[in-house]
């Protein structure tokens, strides 16, 4: 599991420094980099890209389930962030802001390719015995990623941000534009739907459809 807060600033030692102090330092560094970007220093944005590229790429990958599109979408997200950085006022952390841009970029992309995504999901759900024999773990991961990609939009965004990026409920609420209560409800339904689609829990049939 990755965490935006837990990502170390390149060049800083992974010492006994606590996660909390690292997070504070990271946010300070982000703020300085953002201000430098706003003064027109391109190198400062390169530092932000270096710091967040993994998280943004992984977030995009969770949405599209393939490297090629995740690569393009993550780049698009950084480009959009760069163009809009003069408007970034620091009301949220930079990480929350870039995640919001990435989520919107992925949603727009998926909206344009919905039919294709669903077709892919059906193929993956069928599975291949040959591949399953050789790559059992990867197949399981793939199935879960596929199931995540079939969740309803808000449930998927909530699950990805909360479980894979370790954001707080408040941060997720800010990104998806919902209340904390709604975020928790969406998360609960997302987890229940995953269990229904993949099995592995009480009363599972492994063939459930996601409920909204």
């Amino acid at each position, binding site marked *: 599991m990755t965490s935006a807060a837990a990502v170390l600033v390149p060049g800083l030692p992974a010492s006994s420094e606590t996660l909390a102090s690292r997070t504070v330092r990271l946010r300070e560094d982000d703020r300085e980099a953002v201000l430098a970007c706003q003064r027109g220093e391109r190198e400062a944005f390169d530092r932000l890209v270096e710091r967040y590229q993994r998280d943004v790429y992984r977030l995009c990958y969770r949405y599209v389930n393939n490297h090629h599109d995740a690569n393009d979408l993550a780049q698009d997200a950084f480009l959009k962030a760069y163009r809009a950085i003069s408007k970034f006022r620091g009301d949220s952390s930079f990480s929350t802001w870039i995640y919001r841009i990435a989520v919107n970029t992925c949603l727009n992309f998926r909206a344009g390719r919905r039919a294709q995504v669903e077709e892919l999901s059906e193929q993956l759900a069928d599975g291949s015995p040959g591949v399953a024999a050789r790559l059992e773990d990867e197949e399981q*991961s793939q199935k879960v990623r596929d199931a995540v990609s079939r969740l309803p939009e808000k449930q998927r965004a909530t699950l990805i941000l909360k479980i894979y990026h370790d954001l707080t409920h408040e941060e997720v609420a800010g990104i998806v534009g919902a209340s904390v209560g709604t975020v928790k409800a969406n998360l609960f339904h997302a987890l229940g739907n995953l269990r229904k689609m993949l099995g592995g829990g009480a009363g599972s049939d492994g063939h459930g459809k996601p409920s909204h």
Partner: protein
Amino acid sequence: MANHLTDERLIDLLEETAGAETRRHAEECRPCQVRLQDARAGLKLAQSAEVPEPSPLYWEHFRRQVGHRLEAAQPRRWPRLAWGGLLATAAAALVLAVWMPGTPSGGRGTAQLPAWSALPPSDGDQGLAILAVIAPQASEELGVVADCHDVGNCLAELSDEESQALAEALRGQFAKGGTS
């Protein structure tokens, strides 16, 4: 048991942030236990799915790609000093070309540069007209003044090759002014 736990409270239980009353209810209520168990199973499944990690070299490649796309998306800008210097050079070349001793005056011969009255009417920045006069090669062949409405913007948009050509054209004009 009435008043089962809400989805929100069940998430609190899952995250171990629930209050004592919620925990007590969950211990005693079978339907809530089942729902919590399902959520736990879903969480376990979700956590089992890793994103394949690209090669370590990929991240360097990613940064470069972002850098190139940012570069391509940005209008080219010259440092203030560079285009300020070019403007100064252009102005100096113009003055020298017109006033240099030995330069044919407006009263005799064919002037190298047309009189100001002969310049085509300019709708925009007069600096463009001056540029077209003192560096016709640059303006015609390189399209320096094409699509420009302001000499400052025009110069700021020049590529290295174009600026080199403009500098050569200005030097050429300077040489003509000095020898004719």
